[in-house]
């Protein structure tokens, strides 16, 4: 071991690093959920401590993931409406309006509405290629907002969110699903229905994920038909997907029959209810498979329609720049600082002319005789900003602290509290109060802290039995002095 050179240990560190970075990132993804619970006490519209925010967040992510289908995801209001019963169960005695506010707050925080990118950023440390420690930024999202064809905004769960939920995105979707289904079949045979429900739910998430991947593929095909290999690649892909759907459909229909039997045979009401829930979940899976299958069958028709639409013009006449391959692609790969050059130059060149406007009488007249545009009296609801309470104002000013420091900077001789108070009162009527508080603090000074901070002296006050004669304060007339701190013995001696 001792023979290993430095480079060997650096290589070992790099090996360790990979797993470390993955774990740090995975940990970071749960951060926003923990954060919700730590920040809930700061909410001003309600006492939110009764709500378990992380649970609500999981419910919201679940609902978004479940409603994610081919064309779109869930819209904000639908998600809120679905989680309301759950929130109401947490705090049944609170008003429904408050439940909704809580739901919206959690949803907005999962999107991270306040930030420009609508995501989260955490910093983590790792070793660079040269073996030096460096701090890097990791950006991720939990819920993303997208617009559909009508321009309406809807939500989809990000890969990171699905990761947080299922925790197994790295594994092959298909095999994970098969495993989940075998597990489900076994569980039902043994009558363990609540475990079976968890497995069925997991199978549904896996199905949604699979559908999402297929949706992306089909979308890419629809976007540009020209260079997709329709002779082998895509037909193979569709075949594989169809085979998968058929297999799953058969498996799930069998399971469905199995659970239905379990449901009908069960006598215990609780088990009967669970079996019924399970039937719903598996039925939903079957529905999703059917949906996927319908899309797969359409794919060929889409290809033919797109081919007809994209009838191409003749062969090129002269060579020009390939805008995508030679400009957009390389620009995307540059750093932000470098990309500003080409992007700015293209804008300057492609934006055309700015023609200065000159006021013309004709326009002014037309403007003046135009009927006034009707406006609503109210400009819509004003969003309520989340404000933090301001910090408490300082009781004593900086100047007063400095003067108290000067007074307490006793050279060698200890002084009576009464003398210090009298001197302080001469300058500023509020100063004795600060001075008194600091001297009282010095009755039992924190020696350990002073040693840690590396202070060499500490203020000490001692009661020798003399009474304090003062118009404002009463008690013992303390002896105040500076004690030297030495870190070996950790003892102070009154100077």
């Amino acid at each position: 071991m001792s023979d290993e050179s430095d480079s060997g240990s650096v290589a070992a560190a790099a090996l360790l690093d990979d797993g470390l970075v993955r774990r740090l990132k995975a940990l970071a993804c749960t951060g926003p959920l923990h954060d919700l619970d730590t920040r809930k006490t700061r909410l001003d519209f309600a006492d939110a401590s009764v709500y378990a925010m992380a649970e609500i967040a999981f419910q919201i992510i679940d609902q978004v993931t479940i409603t994610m289908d081919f064309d779109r995801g869930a819209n904000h209001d639908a998600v809120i409406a679905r989680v309301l019963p759950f929130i109401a169960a947490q705090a049944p005695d609170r008003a429904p309006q408050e439940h909704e506010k809580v739901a919206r707050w959690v949803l907005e925080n999962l999107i991270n509405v306040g930030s420009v990118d609508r995501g989260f950023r955490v910093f983590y440390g790792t070793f660079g290629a040269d073996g030096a420690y460096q701090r890097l930024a990791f950006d991720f999202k939990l819920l993303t907002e997208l617009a559909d064809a009508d321009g309406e905004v809807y939500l989809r769960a990000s890969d990171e969110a699905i990761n947080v939920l299922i925790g197994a995105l790295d594994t092959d979707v298909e095999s994970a699903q098969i495993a989940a289904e075998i597990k489900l079949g076994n569980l039902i045979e043994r009558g363990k229905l609540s475990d079976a429900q968890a497995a069925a739910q997991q199978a549904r998430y896996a199905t949604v994920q699979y559908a999402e991947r297929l949706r992306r593929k089909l979308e890419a095909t629809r976007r540009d038909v020209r260079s997709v290999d329709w002779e082998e690649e895509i037909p193979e892909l569709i075949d594989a997907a169809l085979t998968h759907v058929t297999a799953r459909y058969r498996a799930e229909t069998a399971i469905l029959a199995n659970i239905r039997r379990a449901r009908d045979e069960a006598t215990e009401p609780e088990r009967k209810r669970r079996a019924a829930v399970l039937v719903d979940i598996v039925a939903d899976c079957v529905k999703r498979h059917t949906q996927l299958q319908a899309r797969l069958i359409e794919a060929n028709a889409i290809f033919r329609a797109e081919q007809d639409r994209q009838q191409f013009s003749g062969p090129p006449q002269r060579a020009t720049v390939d805008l995508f391959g030679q400009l957009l692609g390389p620009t995307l790969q540059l750093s932000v600082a470098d990309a500003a050059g080409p992007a700015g130059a293209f804008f300057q060149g492609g934006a055309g002319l700015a023609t200065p406007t000159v006021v013309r009488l004709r326009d002014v007249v037309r403007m003046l005789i135009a009927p006034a545009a009707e406006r609503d009296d109210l400009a819509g609801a004003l969003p309520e900003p989340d404000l933090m309470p301001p910090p408490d104002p300082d009781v004593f000013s900086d100047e007063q602290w400095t003067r108290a420091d000067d007074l307490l900077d006793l050279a060698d001789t200890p002084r009576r509290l009464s003398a210090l108070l009298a001197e302080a009162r001469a300058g500023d009527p509020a100063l004795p109060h600060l001075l008194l508080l600091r001297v009282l603090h010095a009755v039992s000074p924190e020696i350990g802290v002073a040693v840690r901070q590396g202070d060499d002296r500490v203020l000490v006050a001692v009661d020798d039995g003399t009474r304090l004669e003062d118009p404002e304060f009463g008690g013992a007339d303390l002896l105040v002095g500076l004690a030297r701190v030495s870190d070996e013995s950790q003892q102070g001696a009154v100077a």
Partner: protein
Amino acid sequence: MSVNVPIADAAEAAKFITLGMRPRLLPARDLAYGDYVRRYREDETFAELTNAVANGLGLAVLACSQQTGLVLAATDGSLFEIKMEDYSRRAATRDRRERMLHGLVHLAVAAVAYPRPADLANDSYIGRVSVEQVDAVVREACRVLDEKAAAAEESLDPLEEAPDLEKTWRVYARRPSAAATKDGRLAPDATRSMVNKALRFLAEQGFLSQVGGEGGGTYRTTPRYQVQVRELAADRAFAELLDLGVVTVTDGHGTLRAVSPDTL
């Protein structure tokens, strides 16, 4: 040029240039404009005179034809130059990241409008772009780059103290494609809003014309836009990339294509 030109001709040339400054006016729709275009193409002296007047104003003639009209471009520092600050007030106040993204969006619009080099060269080609397409194409490109990076097992997370060294595609990919503000409007700094702004702006400049509302707004290109991109914008951006030492050689058949399954 030592030819003596009548003063009346100088006035005519200037008038011709003012017609060229109206981006949505076409020679086919204006008889006088059509005559000027014909004269420019047939009368060499008039053409040179027009070019000289344009140069004096801080303009360069990019093209002149019955389809495009007189296409003018502002030279550097010209009165007619469009500044990014005027284009987006937000970009003026925020860091260069915002300007860069607006420029990138314009580049993407052109790339989607003319997907192959041949389309840009072919005078009769008319491209179609929609907000959805532009955003989707850039996102797809970002995703492919992301997968390449993942395959190479590079860590591209930027340094904490040097955010400007982050790769451009990561910045774009991270920006949400659509986002609602708290009062339910679309946020202006989401990418789809930026694309929408660019398309509407180009339509106002006579480079695009709207044909429908599907896909967040669909537009077709005008011959003017083709000339502008081909003769000026693409060259300028290419020159900038050359300065940075980034030269990409392609086979001339276009590289914008659907991705192969192994990257999905």
